[in-house]
């Protein structure tokens, strides 16, 4: 009984004190990396290093930054993010990079707004997560979807 009690206390302690801040855009908690999947989206410029909850949040919040940006978007590979760059206002991504943006509720954004190094990696993620109607987006298509004015959906 004592062991169970200690185990519950440890579990509760971990739940209550995770290493998280809040996303500057959506204000929801940042999702930390796990042993199976990277989740932290990092925007770097100058001496700043700012974490976001998902790629969608970065693009929605980009207007506040006037300088060139580098975005480390977590990919399907641990420790190997898809590196996006905004140079003189123009966004670029590595050849073959594919994007997913299919969340309905913002609470799901970290799972469903992501970058992948290839179409094959995208397909595997979509299959593993059993995502229906998920569309593989190029950077331009992703930006078009995310940045279009509110109320112009479908």
């Amino acid at each position, binding site marked *: 009984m004592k062991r*169970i*009690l200690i185990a*519950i*206390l440890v579990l*509760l302690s971990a*739940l*209550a*004190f*995770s*290493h*998280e*801040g*809040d996303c*500057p*855009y*959506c*204000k*929801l*908690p940042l999702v930390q990396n796990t042993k199976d999947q990277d989740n932290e989206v990092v925007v770097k*410029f*100058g*001496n*700043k*290093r*700012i*974490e976001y909850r998902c790629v969608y949040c970065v693009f929605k*919040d980009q207007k*506040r*930054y*006037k*300088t060139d940006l580098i975005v480390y978007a977590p990919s399907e590979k641990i420790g190997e993010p898809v590196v996006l760059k905004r140079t003189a206002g123009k966004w670029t991504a590595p050849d073959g990079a594919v994007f997913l943006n299919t969340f309905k*509720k*913002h*609470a799901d954004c970290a799972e469903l707004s992501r970058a992948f190094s290839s179409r094959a990696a995208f397909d595997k993620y979509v299959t593993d997560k059993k995502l229906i109607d998920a569309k593989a987006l190029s950077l331009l298509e992703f930006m078009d979807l995310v940045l279009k004015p*509110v109320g112009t959906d479908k």
Partner: protein
Amino acid sequence: MSLLALILGVSTFAQESPRVQSPMPELPVSLPGWLSNRGADALFYKAAPYNWAINRIPAFAKDMYATSVGHAMAYEALVTGKSQELESKTFVTIDRVLKNPPSNPIDEAEISPRFVQKYGYLEKVFDWAHTLHFQTIDVLMHPGWSDTQKEAEIDRLWAFYSSEPYAISGLPTNMEYLDSFPYSGAFRKNYPKVNGLFWGYHWLQTVNYDMLFRVPTADQKPQYALIGQRYHETELYRTDRDFMPMTAEMSPRFARRFPEVTNAFDNLHMLHDNVNDILAQPNLSDSAKQSQVKIAIYRVLASTHRGEKPGEGEPKTLHDHRFPYGMPGMGMMVGSDESSMYMSGMGWMDMSECAHCSIPLPDEGPWGATVSAEGWTMTVRCMMCARDMAAETPGRAIIRAATEDENRLLVMISDEEGNWTSNIKGIVFLEEFGEHPNCSLWSRVFTSRSAFDIFVAKVPELKGAKALSLDQWSKLNYGTPDTYRKLNRPNPYHKDPPIRLRERRDE
């Protein structure tokens, strides 16, 4: 109750603790006689060489003068039956004044004659506390005195202020209790834009003390370029605050040194909120409003709490003078206990800990630094925590930090990209990354290379430590420390997420 439920119940105590709901208060028998005196009593500044030093930063002075115009216009609208115009015509008028602030202090009676006629006793309390606000600023901005002289004078100012019957208590009071009456919250709910302006004024009136406290007068003005911009572009128009800005949140260094002054300002601002709520009640008669305003004044007067002590009192009552551990300059808030409190926009915090690494702030020696960004100010243990906290926050920032010379405060201001400028030329940084609980030893700033060498020579573990220039130090970044613990508890002010968050979640 199951074992798990018992444990969960304990772990979620703060969120399950019900909000205080007090009945409509009745007039106390011991109401001070002057509250029934309709005569004027024009008190004025303590005669002193520092008076009007606020004008040394004209933009700041004008913004401060404009705050009284806004309050007066709104009160006049409320007592002349024009409350339906508050969010439209009155808001536009006030906003125009805020964008074109006056160059001199404004006599509120000129703008709100009907209000002053009806509530002259309240105006005495407001005026006298506003005088303390302004004279404290004047002392801190006076160029002719040392920090020691200024601090002694603020103690004298407090005694001068406290000698009048209109003085507000310097004890911490329970803000949850003071905001628990049937009328509480009506103004912020029904007039969110004007309430946003009021709380924006309170932000400016509370954030300025750390901008000035122990800061050389030459280094005060550059900070206002950033603070004033934030005030005009963001803070005045925020309608998503859960509660009014508290002085200790905005100016924690000043609040630790002058808890009585700080508490008086918060009690004053709470009185403003109470009065707003009372005047915004459509179902209260004029007479009932008069009575409730007098009771609200009574609650915060120093005379009501004579003989009581900080840290004591029955929880969640009028005489609850407890304060969060490490911050005697702030009363208990909704959901708070001695070790944690909820800060609007920042979440749950422990004010006795570093906001970046969660390790307790040192009791002695250099106090570390504060970081101001995005409208908040947080206390941290070391220079590394200050830099990395600013680096992970969008926008410009100010770091105010202790050096080896307690008479020389470092003030650094960053641009949008995190490039820092310093008020002290030739500063040298120590950063020999090690165990975080010791960060205040190995991450420091010195006013000169010789001061760095003297310190390093005294600490064997730092043998061979490299002296870093501002430029070298600025480029380092260790991210969020492993020791950081975010207190993940729900916002005690909302059962549901704030409206702004709900909208974003539904995108």
